[in-house]
Protein backbone atom coordinates (compact mmCIF):
# COMPACT_ATOMS: atom_id res chain seq x y z
CA UNK A 1 0.00 0.00 0.00
CA UNK A 2 2.83 2.34 0.89
CA UNK A 3 4.32 1.49 -2.49
CA UNK A 4 1.11 2.56 -4.24
CA UNK A 5 1.05 5.81 -2.35
CA UNK A 6 4.56 6.74 -3.34
CA UNK A 7 3.75 6.18 -7.04
CA UNK A 8 0.72 8.45 -6.80
CA UNK A 9 2.69 11.07 -4.94
CA UNK A 10 5.39 11.07 -7.65
CA UNK A 11 2.64 11.70 -10.19
CA UNK A 12 0.91 14.49 -8.27
CA UNK A 13 4.19 16.02 -7.18
CA UNK A 14 4.67 17.72 -10.53
CA UNK A 15 1.10 18.98 -10.71
CA UNK A 16 0.84 20.76 -7.37
CA UNK A 17 3.72 20.42 -4.94
CA UNK A 18 6.49 21.08 -7.45
CA UNK A 19 4.55 22.70 -10.27
CA UNK A 20 7.42 23.38 -12.68
CA UNK A 21 6.14 26.73 -13.86
CA UNK A 22 4.54 28.45 -10.89
CA UNK A 23 6.59 27.01 -8.03
CA UNK A 24 9.94 25.96 -9.49
CA UNK A 25 9.82 28.85 -12.03
CA UNK A 26 11.41 26.88 -14.86
CA UNK A 27 10.81 27.01 -18.58
CA UNK A 28 9.42 30.53 -18.46
CA UNK A 29 10.35 31.41 -22.07
CA UNK A 30 7.98 28.99 -23.72
CA UNK A 31 5.21 29.66 -21.19
CA UNK A 32 5.28 33.36 -22.01
CA UNK A 33 5.50 32.82 -25.77
CA UNK A 34 3.00 30.08 -26.58
CA UNK A 35 0.11 31.12 -24.35
CA UNK A 36 -1.42 33.54 -26.88
CA UNK A 37 -4.13 30.97 -27.65
CA UNK A 38 -5.41 27.92 -25.78
CA UNK A 39 -4.85 25.64 -28.79
CA UNK A 40 -1.15 26.60 -28.93
CA UNK A 41 -0.74 26.05 -25.19
CA UNK A 42 -2.33 22.60 -25.40
CA UNK A 43 -0.19 21.64 -28.42
CA UNK A 44 2.97 22.83 -26.70
CA UNK A 45 1.94 20.99 -23.53
CA UNK A 46 1.51 17.70 -25.39
CA UNK A 47 4.81 18.08 -27.26
CA UNK A 48 6.56 19.01 -24.06
CA UNK A 49 5.09 16.10 -22.07
CA UNK A 50 6.04 13.63 -24.79
CA UNK A 51 9.66 14.80 -24.83
CA UNK A 52 9.85 14.89 -21.04
CA UNK A 53 8.43 11.37 -20.53
CA UNK A 54 10.52 9.80 -23.30
CA UNK A 55 13.79 11.44 -22.28
CA UNK A 56 13.14 10.59 -18.61
CA UNK A 57 12.62 6.93 -19.54
CA UNK A 58 15.72 6.72 -21.74
CA UNK A 59 17.97 8.56 -19.32
CA UNK A 60 16.75 6.41 -16.44
CA UNK A 61 17.47 3.29 -18.54
CA UNK A 62 20.95 4.50 -19.34
CA UNK A 63 21.72 5.90 -15.90
CA UNK A 64 24.33 3.23 -15.17
CA UNK A 65 25.93 3.42 -18.61
CA UNK A 66 26.50 7.14 -19.05
CA UNK A 67 29.82 8.25 -17.54
CA UNK A 68 29.58 11.27 -15.25
CA UNK A 69 32.06 13.21 -17.34
CA UNK A 70 29.85 13.45 -20.41
CA UNK A 71 26.43 13.17 -18.78
CA UNK A 72 25.27 16.61 -19.90
CA UNK A 73 26.06 16.19 -23.62
CA UNK A 74 24.48 12.71 -23.51
CA UNK A 75 21.26 14.08 -21.98
CA UNK A 76 21.20 16.90 -24.51
CA UNK A 77 21.57 14.49 -27.44
CA UNK A 78 18.75 12.27 -26.15
CA UNK A 79 16.46 15.25 -25.53
CA UNK A 80 17.30 16.88 -28.88
CA UNK A 81 16.53 13.57 -30.60
CA UNK A 82 13.02 13.41 -29.17
CA UNK A 83 12.43 17.10 -29.85
CA UNK A 84 13.32 16.55 -33.51
CA UNK A 85 10.93 13.60 -33.71
CA UNK A 86 8.14 15.79 -32.33
CA UNK A 87 9.08 18.50 -34.85
CA UNK A 88 8.90 16.13 -37.81
CA UNK A 89 5.65 14.48 -36.75
CA UNK A 90 4.03 17.82 -36.03
CA UNK A 91 5.14 19.29 -39.36
CA UNK A 92 3.67 16.29 -41.15
CA UNK A 93 0.33 16.01 -39.40
CA UNK A 94 -0.35 19.30 -37.58
CA UNK A 95 0.95 21.92 -39.99
CA UNK A 96 -0.84 24.95 -38.51
CA UNK A 97 0.27 24.14 -34.96
CA UNK A 98 3.82 23.69 -36.24
CA UNK A 99 3.74 27.16 -37.79
CA UNK A 100 2.18 28.71 -34.70
CA UNK A 101 4.77 27.31 -32.26
CA UNK A 102 7.64 28.15 -34.62
CA UNK A 103 11.09 28.22 -33.11
CA UNK A 104 9.78 27.42 -29.63
CA UNK A 105 9.42 23.80 -30.69
CA UNK A 106 13.18 23.23 -31.18
CA UNK A 107 13.75 25.40 -28.12
CA UNK A 108 12.21 22.64 -25.97
CA UNK A 109 15.78 21.24 -26.05
CA UNK A 110 17.06 24.01 -23.81
CA UNK A 111 13.95 24.07 -21.63
CA UNK A 112 15.38 23.84 -18.15
CA UNK A 113 12.50 21.68 -16.88
CA UNK A 114 13.52 18.71 -19.03
CA UNK A 115 17.24 18.96 -18.39
CA UNK A 116 16.51 19.66 -14.74
CA UNK A 117 14.33 16.55 -14.34
CA UNK A 118 16.97 14.44 -16.10
CA UNK A 119 19.61 15.79 -13.76
CA UNK A 120 17.60 15.73 -10.54
CA UNK A 121 15.26 12.76 -10.94
CA UNK A 122 15.68 10.42 -13.90
CA UNK A 123 19.36 9.72 -13.36
CA UNK A 124 18.68 8.53 -9.79
CA UNK A 125 15.37 6.70 -10.04
CA UNK A 126 13.81 3.64 -11.64
CA UNK A 127 12.28 3.72 -15.11
CA UNK A 128 8.66 3.59 -13.89
CA UNK A 129 9.19 6.36 -11.35
CA UNK A 130 10.93 8.52 -13.93
CA UNK A 131 8.11 8.03 -16.42
CA UNK A 132 5.52 8.92 -13.78
CA UNK A 133 7.54 11.98 -12.80
CA UNK A 134 7.61 13.03 -16.45
CA UNK A 135 3.85 12.59 -16.80
CA UNK A 136 3.21 14.57 -13.62
CA UNK A 137 5.53 17.42 -14.58
CA UNK A 138 4.08 17.45 -18.09
CA UNK A 139 0.53 17.70 -16.80
CA UNK A 140 1.59 20.45 -14.40
CA UNK A 141 3.15 22.39 -17.26
CA UNK A 142 0.20 21.86 -19.59
CA UNK A 143 -2.38 22.86 -16.97
CA UNK A 144 -0.51 26.04 -16.09
CA UNK A 145 0.00 26.95 -19.75
CA UNK A 146 -3.68 26.34 -20.49
CA UNK A 147 -4.76 28.41 -17.51
CA UNK A 148 -2.61 31.32 -18.62
CA UNK A 149 -3.68 30.95 -22.25
CA UNK A 150 -7.32 30.98 -21.14
CA UNK A 151 -6.76 34.26 -19.34
CA UNK A 152 -4.99 35.79 -22.35
CA UNK A 153 -7.24 34.46 -25.09
CA UNK A 154 -10.54 35.32 -23.37
CA UNK A 155 -9.43 38.86 -22.56
CA UNK A 156 -7.36 39.45 -25.69
CA UNK A 157 -9.46 37.84 -28.43
CA UNK A 158 -12.78 37.22 -26.63
CA UNK A 159 -12.64 33.54 -27.52
CA UNK A 160 -11.66 30.24 -25.93
CA UNK A 161 -10.10 27.50 -28.04
CA UNK A 162 -11.37 29.41 -31.08
CA UNK A 163 -14.99 29.66 -29.90
CA UNK A 164 -16.43 33.10 -29.21
CA UNK A 165 -17.21 33.32 -25.49
CA UNK A 166 -17.46 37.06 -24.89
CA UNK A 167 -20.09 39.07 -26.84
CA UNK A 168 -18.70 40.82 -29.93
CA UNK A 169 -19.79 44.21 -28.57
CA UNK A 170 -17.37 43.92 -25.65
CA UNK A 171 -14.09 45.69 -26.45
CA UNK A 172 -11.07 43.36 -26.63
CA UNK A 173 -7.91 43.97 -24.65
CA UNK A 174 -5.57 43.39 -27.59
CA UNK A 175 -2.42 43.93 -25.55
CA UNK A 176 -3.13 40.71 -23.63
CA UNK A 177 -2.11 38.64 -26.66
CA UNK A 178 1.11 40.61 -27.07
CA UNK A 179 4.37 40.63 -25.10
CA UNK A 180 3.35 42.93 -22.22
CA UNK A 181 0.19 40.89 -21.60
CA UNK A 182 2.28 37.74 -21.27
CA UNK A 183 4.47 39.19 -18.53
CA UNK A 184 1.46 40.72 -16.79
CA UNK A 185 -0.61 37.50 -16.79
CA UNK A 186 2.34 35.47 -15.56
CA UNK A 187 2.91 37.95 -12.73
CA UNK A 188 -0.77 37.86 -11.79
CA UNK A 189 -0.93 34.05 -11.86
CA UNK A 190 2.14 33.79 -9.70
CA UNK A 191 0.80 36.35 -7.25
CA UNK A 192 -2.42 34.34 -7.12
CA UNK A 193 -0.41 31.22 -6.43
CA UNK A 194 1.53 32.94 -3.64
CA UNK A 195 -1.70 34.25 -2.15
CA UNK A 196 -3.17 30.74 -2.17
CA UNK A 197 -0.03 29.38 -0.56
CA UNK A 198 -0.38 32.01 2.15
CA UNK A 199 -3.97 30.89 2.81
CA UNK A 200 -2.93 27.24 2.94
CA UNK A 201 0.18 28.02 4.91
CA UNK A 202 2.47 26.35 2.37
CA UNK A 203 4.80 29.07 1.15
CA UNK A 204 7.81 28.05 -0.88
CA UNK A 205 10.80 30.19 -1.65
CA UNK A 206 11.05 30.89 -5.37
CA UNK A 207 14.43 30.62 -7.01
CA UNK A 208 14.51 31.73 -10.59
CA UNK A 209 15.80 29.66 -13.43
CA UNK A 210 17.94 26.70 -14.14
CA UNK A 211 20.14 24.71 -11.80
CA UNK A 212 23.48 26.43 -12.41
CA UNK A 213 21.71 29.76 -12.30
CA UNK A 214 20.51 28.93 -8.80
CA UNK A 215 24.07 28.43 -7.60
CA UNK A 216 25.03 31.77 -9.04
CA UNK A 217 22.10 33.47 -7.39
CA UNK A 218 22.90 31.96 -4.05
CA UNK A 219 26.45 33.24 -4.48
CA UNK A 220 25.08 36.68 -5.26
CA UNK A 221 22.81 36.67 -2.23
CA UNK A 222 25.67 35.74 0.07
CA UNK A 223 27.79 38.68 -1.06
Amino acid sequence: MAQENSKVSILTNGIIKENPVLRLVLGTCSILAVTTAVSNALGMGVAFTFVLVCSNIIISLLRNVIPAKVHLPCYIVVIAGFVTIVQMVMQAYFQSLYTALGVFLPLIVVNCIILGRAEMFACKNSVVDSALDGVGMGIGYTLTATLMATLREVLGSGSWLGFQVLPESLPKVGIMTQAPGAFFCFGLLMAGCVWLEGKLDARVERKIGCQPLKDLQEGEDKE
Partner: protein
Amino acid sequence: MIVKLAAIFFSMILVNNYVLVKFYGICPFLGVSKKLDSSLGMSGAVIFVMFMATAVTFPLQIFVLDPADLGYLQTIVFILVIAVLVQFIEIFLKKYMVSLYNALGVYLPLITTNCCVLAVTILVVDDYGADVATLGFAAAYIESLVCAVGSGVGFMLAMCLFSGVRTRVEACDPPEPFKGLPITLVSAAITSPYFMGFGGIVENIFNVTL
Protein backbone atom coordinates in the same frame (compact mmCIF):
# COMPACT_ATOMS: atom_id res chain seq x y z
CA MET B 1 24.19 46.98 -48.19
CA ILE B 2 25.43 49.11 -45.27
CA VAL B 3 21.94 50.54 -44.84
CA LYS B 4 20.40 47.11 -44.81
CA LEU B 5 22.94 45.85 -42.27
CA ALA B 6 22.29 48.84 -40.04
CA ALA B 7 18.56 48.31 -40.37
CA ILE B 8 18.96 44.64 -39.40
CA PHE B 9 21.20 45.56 -36.45
CA PHE B 10 18.90 48.16 -34.97
CA SER B 11 15.72 46.26 -35.62
CA MET B 12 17.17 43.29 -33.72
CA ILE B 13 17.94 45.56 -30.78
CA LEU B 14 14.81 47.67 -30.68
CA VAL B 15 11.94 46.16 -32.67
CA ASN B 16 12.58 42.42 -32.35
CA ASN B 17 14.16 42.64 -28.90
CA TYR B 18 14.94 39.06 -27.92
CA VAL B 19 13.96 39.30 -24.29
CA LEU B 20 11.07 41.71 -24.06
CA VAL B 21 9.36 41.06 -27.40
CA LYS B 22 10.36 37.53 -28.44
CA PHE B 23 10.77 35.92 -24.98
CA TYR B 24 14.13 34.27 -25.61
CA GLY B 25 16.39 34.12 -22.56
CA ILE B 26 13.83 34.88 -19.87
CA CYS B 27 15.64 32.76 -17.24
CA PRO B 28 18.83 34.86 -17.12
CA PHE B 29 16.72 37.98 -17.60
CA LEU B 30 14.83 37.29 -14.38
CA GLY B 31 17.70 35.59 -12.59
CA VAL B 32 20.78 37.70 -13.19
CA SER B 33 19.38 41.20 -13.75
CA LYS B 34 19.47 42.07 -10.06
CA LYS B 35 22.65 44.12 -10.36
CA LEU B 36 24.07 46.18 -13.20
CA ASP B 37 27.53 44.56 -13.25
CA SER B 38 26.21 41.00 -13.31
CA SER B 39 23.79 42.05 -16.09
CA LEU B 40 26.71 43.42 -18.08
CA GLY B 41 28.86 40.33 -17.50
CA MET B 42 26.11 37.93 -18.46
CA SER B 43 25.15 39.82 -21.60
CA GLY B 44 28.79 40.24 -22.62
CA ALA B 45 29.21 36.48 -22.47
CA VAL B 46 25.95 36.00 -24.38
CA ILE B 47 26.97 38.37 -27.20
CA PHE B 48 30.31 36.60 -27.50
CA VAL B 49 28.84 33.10 -27.61
CA MET B 50 26.02 34.13 -29.96
CA PHE B 51 28.55 35.55 -32.42
CA MET B 52 30.83 32.51 -32.23
CA ALA B 53 27.96 30.02 -32.43
CA THR B 54 26.45 31.72 -35.49
CA ALA B 55 29.86 31.94 -37.11
CA VAL B 56 30.14 28.15 -36.85
CA THR B 57 26.57 26.94 -37.36
CA PHE B 58 25.66 29.04 -40.41
CA PRO B 59 28.36 27.63 -42.71
CA LEU B 60 27.73 24.20 -41.18
CA GLN B 61 24.10 24.35 -42.26
CA ILE B 62 24.84 25.74 -45.75
CA PHE B 63 27.82 23.56 -46.64
CA VAL B 64 27.21 20.32 -44.70
CA LEU B 65 23.61 19.78 -43.60
CA ASP B 66 21.80 21.22 -46.64
CA PRO B 67 23.83 19.48 -49.39
CA ALA B 68 23.69 16.18 -47.49
CA ASP B 69 19.91 16.57 -47.06
CA LEU B 70 20.29 16.27 -43.30
CA GLY B 71 18.22 19.34 -42.41
CA TYR B 72 16.37 17.32 -39.79
CA LEU B 73 19.55 17.00 -37.71
CA GLN B 74 19.67 20.79 -37.30
CA THR B 75 18.50 20.97 -33.68
CA ILE B 76 20.76 18.21 -32.43
CA VAL B 77 23.86 19.43 -34.30
CA PHE B 78 23.41 23.06 -33.29
CA ILE B 79 22.95 22.34 -29.59
CA LEU B 80 26.01 20.09 -29.57
CA VAL B 81 28.06 22.74 -31.36
CA ILE B 82 26.97 25.32 -28.79
CA ALA B 83 27.78 23.00 -25.87
CA VAL B 84 31.23 22.17 -27.24
CA LEU B 85 31.90 25.79 -28.17
CA VAL B 86 31.05 27.05 -24.70
CA GLN B 87 33.41 24.49 -23.14
CA PHE B 88 36.12 25.39 -25.60
CA ILE B 89 35.76 29.13 -25.06
CA GLU B 90 35.92 28.59 -21.32
CA ILE B 91 39.16 26.61 -21.54
CA PHE B 92 40.66 29.07 -24.03
CA LEU B 93 39.83 32.15 -21.96
CA LYS B 94 41.08 30.53 -18.76
CA LYS B 95 44.42 29.84 -20.35
CA TYR B 96 45.11 32.84 -22.58
CA MET B 97 42.82 35.71 -21.62
CA VAL B 98 42.64 35.66 -17.86
CA SER B 99 41.14 39.12 -17.43
CA LEU B 100 38.29 38.35 -19.81
CA TYR B 101 37.81 35.00 -18.08
CA ASN B 102 37.53 36.73 -14.73
CA ALA B 103 34.86 39.03 -16.13
CA LEU B 104 32.77 36.48 -18.05
CA GLY B 105 33.84 33.08 -16.70
CA VAL B 106 31.11 32.47 -14.14
CA TYR B 107 28.41 33.13 -16.72
CA LEU B 108 29.73 30.83 -19.43
CA PRO B 109 28.39 27.48 -18.10
CA LEU B 110 24.88 28.99 -17.93
CA ILE B 111 24.88 29.82 -21.60
CA THR B 112 24.55 26.32 -23.03
CA THR B 113 20.99 26.14 -21.74
CA ASN B 114 20.22 29.77 -22.56
CA CYS B 115 17.59 29.64 -25.25
CA CYS B 116 18.64 32.87 -26.98
CA VAL B 117 21.82 31.25 -28.32
CA LEU B 118 20.05 28.25 -29.86
CA ALA B 119 17.26 30.56 -31.05
CA VAL B 120 19.61 32.91 -32.89
CA THR B 121 21.44 30.09 -34.67
CA ILE B 122 18.18 28.55 -35.89
CA LEU B 123 16.57 31.87 -36.81
CA VAL B 124 19.47 33.22 -38.90
CA VAL B 125 19.43 30.02 -40.94
CA ASP B 126 15.67 30.46 -41.49
CA ASP B 127 16.00 34.15 -42.31
CA TYR B 128 19.26 34.48 -44.21
CA GLY B 129 19.79 30.96 -45.54
CA ALA B 130 17.75 31.91 -48.62
CA ASP B 131 20.02 34.93 -49.25
CA VAL B 132 22.90 32.60 -50.06
CA ALA B 133 21.23 31.84 -53.40
CA THR B 134 20.42 35.47 -54.27
CA LEU B 135 23.26 37.52 -52.74
CA GLY B 136 26.04 34.96 -52.44
CA PHE B 137 27.41 33.28 -49.34
CA ALA B 138 29.62 36.14 -48.12
CA ALA B 139 26.80 38.69 -48.01
CA ALA B 140 24.42 36.26 -46.31
CA TYR B 141 27.12 35.32 -43.80
CA ILE B 142 27.76 38.98 -42.90
CA GLU B 143 24.03 39.62 -42.54
CA SER B 144 23.63 36.67 -40.20
CA LEU B 145 26.61 37.70 -38.06
CA VAL B 146 25.28 41.26 -37.80
CA CYS B 147 21.92 39.82 -36.84
CA ALA B 148 23.53 37.66 -34.12
CA VAL B 149 25.45 40.56 -32.60
CA GLY B 150 22.38 42.80 -32.83
CA SER B 151 20.30 40.24 -30.97
CA GLY B 152 22.98 40.00 -28.30
CA VAL B 153 23.14 43.76 -27.90
CA GLY B 154 19.34 43.79 -27.63
CA PHE B 155 19.64 41.25 -24.84
CA MET B 156 22.19 43.50 -23.11
CA LEU B 157 19.97 46.55 -23.47
CA ALA B 158 17.03 44.73 -21.91
CA MET B 159 19.16 43.34 -19.05
CA CYS B 160 20.69 46.72 -18.21
CA LEU B 161 17.42 48.65 -18.47
CA PHE B 162 15.76 46.10 -16.30
CA SER B 163 18.44 46.03 -13.63
CA GLY B 164 17.69 49.73 -13.19
CA VAL B 165 13.97 49.06 -12.99
CA ARG B 166 14.55 46.31 -10.44
CA THR B 167 16.59 48.48 -8.13
CA ARG B 168 13.58 50.77 -7.88
CA VAL B 169 11.11 47.91 -7.54
CA GLU B 170 13.05 46.31 -4.70
CA ALA B 171 12.79 49.52 -2.73
CA CYS B 172 9.00 49.50 -3.00
CA ASP B 173 6.47 47.80 -0.82
CA PRO B 174 3.97 45.91 -3.00
CA PRO B 175 1.01 43.91 -1.60
CA GLU B 176 2.15 40.73 0.14
CA PRO B 177 1.38 38.17 -2.66
CA PHE B 178 3.21 40.32 -5.23
CA LYS B 179 6.49 40.49 -3.31
CA GLY B 180 9.52 39.16 -5.14
CA LEU B 181 9.00 37.56 -8.51
CA PRO B 182 5.38 38.54 -9.33
CA ILE B 183 6.04 42.28 -9.05
CA THR B 184 9.20 41.80 -11.13
CA LEU B 185 7.09 40.21 -13.89
CA VAL B 186 4.53 43.01 -13.70
CA SER B 187 7.29 45.59 -14.05
CA ALA B 188 8.63 43.65 -17.05
CA ALA B 189 5.13 43.98 -18.48
CA ILE B 190 5.39 47.75 -18.09
CA THR B 191 8.91 47.86 -19.60
CA SER B 192 8.14 45.81 -22.71
CA PRO B 193 5.56 48.06 -24.48
CA TYR B 194 8.32 50.65 -25.08
CA PHE B 195 9.91 48.25 -27.53
CA MET B 196 6.67 47.95 -29.47
CA GLY B 197 6.89 51.63 -30.38
CA PHE B 198 10.39 51.47 -31.85
CA GLY B 199 9.28 50.14 -35.25
CA GLY B 200 8.66 53.67 -36.54
CA ILE B 201 12.04 54.96 -35.34
CA VAL B 202 14.12 52.39 -37.23
CA GLU B 203 11.88 52.94 -40.25
CA ASN B 204 12.44 56.68 -40.34
CA ILE B 205 16.16 56.74 -39.54
CA PHE B 206 17.08 54.35 -42.33
CA ASN B 207 14.22 55.25 -44.63
CA VAL B 208 13.46 51.57 -45.03
CA THR B 209 11.00 49.34 -43.33
CA LEU B 210 10.73 45.93 -41.94
